[in-house]
């Protein structure tokens, strides 16, 4: 088996918003083209925000 280059060492605790911090304001269009302000849309509820590569590949 050929040796593959190693994965970079990533510390996800330091990448992106940290635990305990306020998640920054994000406003983006949704699949209907309506602008969604994330914090306004969750309307005082909890939220799960998933980041993924692409819906098309």
């Amino acid at each position, binding site marked *: 088996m050929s040796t*593959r*280059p*190693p*994965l*970079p060492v*990533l510390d*996800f*605790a330091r*990448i*992106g*918003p*940290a*635990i*305990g*911090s*306020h*998640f*920054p304001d*994000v406003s*983006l*269009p*949704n*699949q*209907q*083209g309506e602008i*969604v302000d*994330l*914090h306004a*849309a*969750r*309307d*005082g*509820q*909890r*939220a*799960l*925000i*998933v*980041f*993924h*590569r*692409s*819906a*098309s*590949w």
Partner: protein
Amino acid sequence: MELQRSLPDYQRAGIVLFAVSYDPIEVLAAFAAKHGITYDLLADVGSHAIRALGLLNEHIAEQHAHYGVPMRDHVRGVPYPGSFALDQNGIVVGKWFEQSYRVRPTAVWLLEDGFGGESTLPRAVAEATTAEVRVSAWLSGRSYRPYQKLELNLEVDVPTGLHVYGQPVPDGYTPLTVAVESLDGLEVGPLELPAPRPVHFAELGETLPVHKGTFRGQLSVILLKNLGPVNLSVRVSYQACSDRSCYPPGEVTVALPLEGLDNVRD
């Protein structure tokens, strides 16, 4: 899609779902229509929000080289794959990221472990009892897809008056260990157990780490390919003892039936 199936459970727990990618609105609209997705898919065309949040994957070329995936231009601008849990005040209370774009936790796992919610989707459950212990095991679902990270939960019930050994123990003692029978492309994560309590045994003249009563452990399970229906066979080895005497080392096996599914592709 996987999150969509759990959407009612998320709504019941008061959790709003958002998914962010760099896809244009039309791609998201087609994807949502095809898979019946009703939660918000957000279009971060140009990856401006992804970049502002510090989530732009700057190591994509190295990761692709490691996984043996050819590097293509369209992958520039992708975020690191992962999720954030926010509380009612918008504070980040959970964060789960992976190096690989294929590995991801299930929606049920995020709901139950990340938010303390409860899934009503069917799950694989198995239980077995020996003279000394009862072991039950369950998985976050009844099916798997390649590279999906499933959570295997174990509950061990040791009757009053008995204990089992934790780790580390000197030679001659059998600590509680869990082994998942190997399958082609099966990856099993480390077992997480509550810390055993050190107990001094005067008759042995030793202090040993023990587990008593009912306790739970977790480990992650990933199948790299769809093998069709499989039985995930989980063997728990232990030695049960009272303060005065020990049973011989024992083991108990539970089998969790799982349906194999292919990944959803557009």
